[in-house]
């Protein structure tokens, strides 16, 4: 009896180890990337801002443009190779009728305009965030990032990194469909 209790006590390190191993195994099996952060703004409205249109310096936008319908907000820049990679897919989504707002982040206006002309423009509205002010308020830490915003202007999800067919089908489309 005493021996059994002793064995049970001595099993504690084993049990702790197994629990620890499970926690170590899951991110590996799921293939999750520890450097990808979830947004701190989930469930909150898009922060207030005033930004110029990328094509027209005199045209200004504020946070109201995110109300009225559900949409994607894509943060991109010409200096970002992954943005180039995902651009084709963004065009495809736009062709399917998705409403996408683009935010050009800490970039050169002329280069950005050339990019949109050459690679086709998937954005209904293109914001120009030269200083990264809105980027900072949105907690952008690396382009590309894509926010899913519902018709109330509330941020529902953020995807960091390349947006492609697989990511869209596996995760984003479900969230997008569920949004009001």
């Amino acid at each position: 009896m005493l021996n059994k209790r002793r064995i049970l006590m001595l099993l504690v390190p084993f049990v702790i180890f197994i629990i620890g191993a499970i926690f170590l195994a899951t991110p590996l099996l799921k293939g999750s990337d520890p450097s990808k952060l979830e947004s701190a703004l989930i469930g909150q409205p898009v922060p207030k801002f005033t930004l110029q249109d990328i094509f027209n310096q005199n045209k200004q936008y504020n946070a109201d443009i995110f109300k009225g319908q559900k949409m994607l907000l894509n943060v991109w820049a010409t200096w970002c190779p992954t943005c180039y990679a995902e651009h084709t897919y963004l065009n495809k989504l736009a062709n399917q009728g998705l409403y996408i707002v683009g935010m050009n982040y800490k970039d050169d206006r002329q280069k950005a305009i050339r990019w949109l002309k050459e690679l086709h423009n998937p954005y209904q509205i293109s914001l120009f965030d030269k200083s990264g002010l809105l980027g900072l308020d949105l907690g952008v830490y690396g382009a590309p990032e894509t926010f899913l915003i519902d018709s109330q202007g509330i941020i529902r999800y953020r995807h960091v990194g390349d947006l492609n067919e697989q990511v869209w089908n596996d995760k984003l489309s479900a969230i997008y469909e569920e949004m009001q």
Partner: protein
Amino acid sequence: MIAVRNMAFYIGLIISITALTSYPAQAAIESFEFDNAQQEQTFYELTKLLRCPKCQNQNIADSNAELAKDLRNKAYQLVKQGQTKEQVVDYMVTRFGNFVRYDPPLTPATIFLWLGPLLFVMGGVFILVKQVKTQTGKKQALAPQEKQKLASLLAQHDRDSER
């Protein structure tokens, strides 16, 4: 990771090379000017406390990344405006989440950071005391003459082990 696989291979290559070269080989050195020593101290502490979300594991003082620079500048502005350390940290956390601070907040999980070691110390001391007690219990069960013998042996051993 998975995403890159579908794209042209060279793009993946470019990304991985840029990722490699962003290795923290170079300290971020800038000079800021402050109204008073208190502000300088607050700013200095903040740059050590705030983590650069883009980088590997680095605070914004050490990182040379573009984003770290932005956060340093923002922290500098806020401190210059007279905000306290807590206010600046809150400002960053509302935007980047708790990841941005190296001192984690109290959550149902982080409580174990403090509880874990504490419980271990308490448990360890408890076991130590209990073990000593069971031993002394056994010792008292000895007959008087055995006790005496043990005492003399112990005394002799004490002398031995001092050598």
